[in-house]
C-alpha cells in the first residue's frame, strides 16, 4: 500500500507546477516529483520564420528574463551570419545581460526567498511574505526594490521601456548608447553596491541562524555546468563551457558552446512536460547537473572584480577542501555574490570609452546553416540553437533552458527535504514551507520552459493507495 502526497501549485515561483511525494508501504518517502503540466511549443511555431525575426519572437517567451533570451537569440544569429560583432555592441549586450542578472536576482532574494529566512520557515504562511517582512525589515525591502529598479532601468535605457524589446539583433544591437544614459546609470552604482553588501551581511546571519536546517536543502554531489571566460574567470556572456564534478574535479573544459549537444542530452518522462537534461559522457543516473549562480561560482577560478572576488574566497572556504559547494541553499549566497559582481562590472563597462562607440551593427548574409547562441541567464546557461535554409528561413529550433537543466537536481532536493521533514501521513506547514523554499533556491521560472498561468492557491492532497483523500487543505 502506498500513498501519494500532492502539493499543487507551488507558490512564489513563476509559472505553475505541482509536487507529488510518493510513499512506500511503510509510509516512508520513496520518491518526489516536481511536475510541470503546461506546454507551450514555442520551438515549433518559430519554424518557417526568418532568422532575423527570432530575437523579437523569442524575447516573448518570458516576461521575467526577456533580455537573456534576446541576447542569446541575437548571438545565435551572429553565428549563422558567421561574423564578429562590433566591440561596442558586445559591451552593450554585456551591459544588458548584467542588468538582467541584477533585476532578476534582486527579486529572487529580496522578495521571494527572504521572507522564509527572516520570518522563519515555521511562521504563519499568511504573514510569510514581503508584507510580513515590512514590519521589521523596512529598509531591507526598500533597498531590494531599489536594486531591482536599477537592473530594470539598465534594460529599459538600452532597449526601450517595453518589456519585450527587439533591441539586440543578429550582428549587434540596433542603437548606440549615449552620455546621458550612461550618467543616469552611473549614478546608481554607490547605492547598488551598498545594497549588495548589506544583503550579504544579512545572508551571513541567516547562515548562522539556520545552521541546523541548511544541510537538508539539496545537499548532494552533482555536476556543475556553465560558462567561464578564456582564462577561467566568472563569465556571463562569452567564453566556453566547463563541467566540474561535486569533488572539484574539472571533467570537461573549453567546450565550444556550439557543440553543447555532443555533451548534453535530454530525456523525457511521462509525468512532466519539462525535459530532463543530463551530461551525456556519464549515464542518465550520474549525469545530473546544476546550472545557475551556484554552478557559476563553483566552476570559475576567479572573479575579475575585487569585492566579488573577496566574497568568492569566503564561499570557497565554506565549501572546504573540495572547493565546490554541493548544497543548494548556497544558491542564495552565490546569487548575492553575482549581484555584487554585476554592479562592479556594470561600473567598469560604463566607464569604458568604447561603450559610447557609434559602430554597433555588422551586416552579413546567411553564411552557415545552423547557429548556436549561448548566454548565462540569471537562472543558468541558456542555449538557442537554430537551423536555417540558405535564405535564413528557420527549419528547426532547439532551446535548452536553465530551469529544465536544474530539473533533476530540483527533484532530488524535494526528495531530500521530504525524507527529512515528512512525519507520518500528515502534511505540516513546516514541511511544505521547506519544500517550497527548497524549490525557490533554484528560482525556477516555469513560464520560460512552458507557459505562465495566473496564480492559484496552494492545494495539498494526501491520497492513499485506494485513491482516498486522507488529508487535504487549501492555503
Amino acid at each position: 500500500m502506498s500513498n501519494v502526497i500532492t502539493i499543487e501549485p507551488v507558490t512564489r515561483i513563476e509559472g505553475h507546477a505541482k509536487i507529488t511525494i510518493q510513499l512506500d508501504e511503510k509510509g516512508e518517502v520513496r520518491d518526489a516529483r516536481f511536475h510541470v503540466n503546461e506546454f507551450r511549443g514555442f520551438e515549433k511555431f518559430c519554424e518557417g520564420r526568418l532568422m532575423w525575426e527570432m530575437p523579437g519572437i523569442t524575447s516573448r517567451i518570458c516576461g521575467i528574463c526577456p533580455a537573456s533570451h534576446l541576447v542569446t537569440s541575437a548571438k545565435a544569429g551572429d553565428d549563422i551570419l558567421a561574423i564578429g560583432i562590433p566591440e561596442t555592441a558586445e559591451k552593450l549586450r554585456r551591459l544588458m545581460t548584467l542588468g538582467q542578472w541584477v533585476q532578476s536576482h534582486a527579486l529572487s532574494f529580496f522578495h521571494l526567498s527572504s521572507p522564509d529566512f527572516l520570518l522563519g520557515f515555521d511562521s504563519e504562511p499568511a504573514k510569510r511574505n514581503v508584507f510580513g517582512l515590512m514590519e521589521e525589515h523596512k529598509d531591507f525591502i526598500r533597498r531590494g526594490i531599489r536594486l531591482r529598479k536599477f537592473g530594470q532601468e539598465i534594460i529599459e535605457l538600452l532597449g526601450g521601456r517595453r518589456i519585450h524589446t527587439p533591441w539586440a539583433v543578429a550582428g549587434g544591437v540596433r542603437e548606440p548608447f549615449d552620455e546621458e544614459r550612461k550618467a543616469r546609470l552611473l549614478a546608481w552604482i554607490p547605492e547598488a553596491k551598498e545594497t549588495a553588501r548589506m544583503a550579504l551581511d544579512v545572508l551571513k546571519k541567516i547562515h548562522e541562524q539556520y545552521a541546523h536546517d541548511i544541510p537538508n536543502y539539496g545537499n548532494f554531489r552533482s555536476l556543475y555546468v556553465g560558462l567561464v571566460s578564456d582564462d577561467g574567470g566568472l563569465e556571463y556572456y562569452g567564453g566556453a563551457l566547463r563541467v566540474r564534478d561535486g569533488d572539484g574535479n574539472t571533467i570537461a573544459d573549453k567546450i565550444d558552446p556550439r557543440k553543447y549537444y555532443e555533451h548534453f542530452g535530454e530525456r523525457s518522462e511521462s509525468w512532466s512536460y519539462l525535459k530532463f537534461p543530463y551530461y551525456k559522457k556519464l549515464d542518465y543516473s550520474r549525469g545530473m547537473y546544476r546550472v545557475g549562480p551556484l554552478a557559476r561560482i563553483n566552476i570559475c577560478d576567479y572573479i575579475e572584480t575585487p569585492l566579488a572576488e573577496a566574497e568568492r574566497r569566503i564561499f570557497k572556504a565554506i565549501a572546504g577542501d573540495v572547493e565546490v559547494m554541493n548544497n543548494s541553499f548556497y544558491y542564495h549566497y552565490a546569487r548575492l555574490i553575482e549581484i555584487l559582481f554585476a554592479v562592479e562590472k556594470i561600473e567598469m563597462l560604463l566607464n569604458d570609452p568604447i561603450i559610447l562607440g557609434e559602430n554597433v551593427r555588422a551586416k552579413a548574409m546567411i553564411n552557415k546553416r545552423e547557429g548556436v547562441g549561448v548566454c548565462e541567464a540569471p537562472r543558468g546557461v541558456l542555449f538557442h540553437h537554430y537551423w536555417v535554409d540558405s535564405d535564413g528561413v528557420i527549419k528547426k529550433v532547439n532551446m535548452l533552458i536553465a530551469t529544465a537543466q536544474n530539473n533533476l537536481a530540483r527533484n532530488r532536493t524535494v526528495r531530500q527535504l521530504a525524507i527529512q521533514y515528512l512525519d507520518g501521513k500528515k502534511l505540516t506547514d513546516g514541511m511544505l514551507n521547506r519544500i517550497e523554499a527548497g524549490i525557490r533556491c533554484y528560482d525556477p521560472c516555469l513560464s520560460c520552459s512552458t507557459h505562465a498561468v495566473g496564480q492559484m492557491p496552494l492545494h495539498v492532497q494526501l491520497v492513499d493507495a485506494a485513491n482516498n483523500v486522507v488529508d487535504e487543505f487549501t492555503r
Partner: protein
Amino acid sequence: MAILTLTINGEHVSGKDDESLLDIARQHDVHIPTLCHLDGLSDVGACRLCLVEVEGQSKLFPACTTKPQEGMVIRTDTERLKKYRRTIIELLASEGNHQCAVCVVNNHCELQNLAYDVDLQYVRFPYLYPKKELDATHEDFVIDRNRCVLCTRCVRVCHEVEGAHTWDIAGRGIDCTIIADMNQPWGTSASCTSCGKCVRVCPTGALFEKGQTVAEMEKQRDFLKYIVHARQKREWVAEQIEEE
C-alpha cells in the same frame, strides 16, 4: 479638359474632368481611406476602401477610378460606407496571417493604420490561418505572403515604373497570390532588377529588406512622386515635390 462642379458631403467643389473623385476630394481636404492607391501608380480599384455613394445610383463607386460628372452629388462618410470599410479591414485581417507584434513594419504599417482609422474593434470573421509561402531567396529582399493584402502596388510599380514586370498575380479568388516571373523563387527571377521599388511601395510587411528586425522597417514612398514627375515632365526637381 473641362472644369466641372459637383457636391462632396454637401460642399460645392470643382474639379477637372480628367481627375478622379479621389483627387478632387483630396484637393478639398476630404479624407477618404485608401490602400491599393498610391500617388504615381495607375489606379485599379482593387481594395474597395475608397468606395463612395453617388446620389441617384444604388451601387457604390471606387473614388480612385471614378471620373467626375457635372452636378454629381457624392457622400464619402456615411454610416453605410463606414460599415463597409470596417468589414473590408476585418476581412483582410482574417484572410492573412497578420501578427503585428513580431512584424518588421509594426507601428509603420498602412494596414495597421487603417484598422485604427476605421475604428476596428473586433474581427467578427473566423481567422483562416492560411498556409502561405515566405520566399527569402532574393539576395536583398523577402516576400512574406502571410502579410500580403493583394493590393498589387508591387505589380504595378514593377510594370509601370521600373518596366521589369517581374511580379504578377496567379490564381483566382481566395487562392490569388503574388508570383515572380513564371511562379518561381524570387531569387531565380531573370527579369528582376533588384531595384527595390516593390519593397518601398508595399503597404504592409509583406515585402521587406533582408536583415530587418521587428518594428524596424519604415518605408519611404516619396521617391515615386519624384521619379514619375521626372519622367512625365522631364524635370528633376525634388523641392517641388516636397512642396506639394
